[in-house]
């Protein structure tokens, strides 16, 4: 099946087998640009998660004492609350991605600036935030940012989730910066040369010729980064944001049945899988498509 799809992407109906070496090379190149492993989620992974969930349910059912409602009923009871938490995770990921992408684009452009101080400063910033552990950045933002700011006499509170979102936006910013820099530098210098000989200036060359070609190259690693960020939003539970993980913990303590642990946490995993799976599949498909077209 996946072989067939390769043929479609290559625009041929001949039974061409892609050499495995080029798969590996492409995956490596993609991971170098994004700085992350590419999520290569398969339906089998979903099936495995489902199996884990069913085993968890079985364990819970077996440990159930007389008078406990069935495991399915218990999970169903908590689902609205947990899903509310999940939506909060998604909201955090969306805000962090937006803020991180905007900041990261500026930082990425600064990394290819012709002015050495700008370029070096941006490089340092990028690599600091890209290599710092996400959880540490999160704690920094939680404890260094004030809980309220006063502007023109008006006191504006900054809720924890905003601070946590900013904490997650920092590594996103650094990674987007690298994606932008990598994409711009992956465009052959011949394109710059031919633009120069047509009397384009640097700004025009960048906006009219280089960046439009970069979007294709940036999209797959950017989507991959988003999927990874979505999974990282559960980190905010550690710093006290009431998202899905926190709520799951609370539900478990309310139920006070240790047997539910495996079932509930694999249920959480399953929701994340449902959300990330289409993104991961789409990313891989775009990657293959653009690799063929280049």
């Amino acid at each position: 099946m996946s072989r067939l799809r390769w043929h479609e992407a290559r625009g041929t109906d001949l039974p061409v087998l892609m050499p495995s070496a080029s798969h590996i090379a492409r995956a490596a190149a993609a991971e170098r640009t994004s700085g992350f492993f590419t999520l290569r989620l398969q339906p089998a992974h979903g099936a495995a998660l489902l199996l884990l969930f069913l085993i968890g349910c079985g364990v819970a059912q077996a440990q159930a004492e007389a008078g406990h409602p069935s495991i399915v009923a218990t999970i169903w009871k908590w689902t609205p609350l947990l899903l509310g938490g999940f939506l909060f995770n998604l909201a955090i990921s969306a805000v962090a991605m937006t803020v991180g992408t905007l900041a990261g684009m500026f930082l990425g452009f600064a990394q290819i600036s012709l002015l050495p101080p700008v370029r070096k400063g941006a490089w340092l910033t990028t690599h600091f935030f890209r290599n710092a552990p996400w959880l540490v950045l999160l704690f920094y933002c939680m404890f260094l940012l004030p809980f309220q700011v006063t502007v023109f006499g008006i006191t504006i509170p900054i809720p924890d989730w905003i601070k946590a979102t900013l904490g997650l936006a920092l590594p996103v910013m650094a990674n987007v910066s690298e994606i932008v820099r990598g994409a711009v530098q992956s465009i052959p210098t011949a394109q710059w040369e031919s633009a120069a000989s047509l009397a384009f200036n640097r700004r025009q060359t960048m906006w009219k010729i280089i960046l439009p070609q970069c979007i294709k190259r940036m999209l797959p690693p950017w989507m991959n980064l988003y999927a990874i960020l979505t999974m990282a939003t559960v980190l905010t539970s550690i710093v006290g944001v009431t998202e899905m993980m926190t709520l799951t913990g609370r539900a478990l303590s309310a139920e006070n049945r240790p047997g539910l642990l495996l079932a509930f946490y694999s249920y959480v995993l399953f929701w994340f899988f449902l959300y990330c799976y289409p993104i991961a599949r789409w990313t891989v498909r775009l990657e293959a498509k653009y690799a063929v077209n280049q």
Partner: protein
Amino acid sequence: MNAASEPIVAIRDVHQSFGAVEVLKGISLEVPKGGVVCIIGPSGSGKSTLLRCINGLVPINKGSIRVAGFEVQKLKTDQEKIALRKEVSMVFQQYNLFPHKTALQNVMMAPIHVLKENEAEVRERAVALLEKVRLTEKANAYPGELSGGQQQRVAIARSLAMQPEVMLFDEITAALDPETVKEVLTTIKELAQDGMTCMLVTHEMRFAREIADVVHFTDGGVIVESGPPDQLFDRPVKDRTRAFLSQIL
């Protein structure tokens, strides 16, 4: 001063080095307006570098280059170089079309964005240029859908759209298969007949003989021998020229 006798390209004692390697070791040549000059020579003799010096892509260390009224070695800022490149356009071996734009858009881009011309007028001119290079039916095709020869002809039309004074061609048929070479060379020939000043670096000796007013043979960063094609190809004076030609022809 008589403007007609003034050469449009005047290169005097040009030296250029990449680090410690001296690529050009004192090149001098002139091209009259409407003239067609071919530069031949073995790989690494500095032919392409010379062309790149002429439109300011590569700075020179010593000597002077005067093209279409510009003293190239004195151009410092990007703006000055851009003014030069509006008059001196270059076509590359690897075509270097913009892959995200159609053939027509490739031709239209520079006049619209660089010369700030009216889009309707530019479109009219671009359509005419594509017709001139016989690619009217490919106007809306992307570079990836075109053959090498077709891409190269789009690249020529794209340079012509800037209405330059001088056209530089850097081994433009080197990446093409023999059958498509002809279509590109026909285009250049028509261009030369229209009175465009052309400087070509080429390995197509038969074509050079057919089209050039003057042929320069370069080797090791200097011009070894120059002359009209009949003389240079049939009665070369220097041994080095003779050796090179006997290997090629």
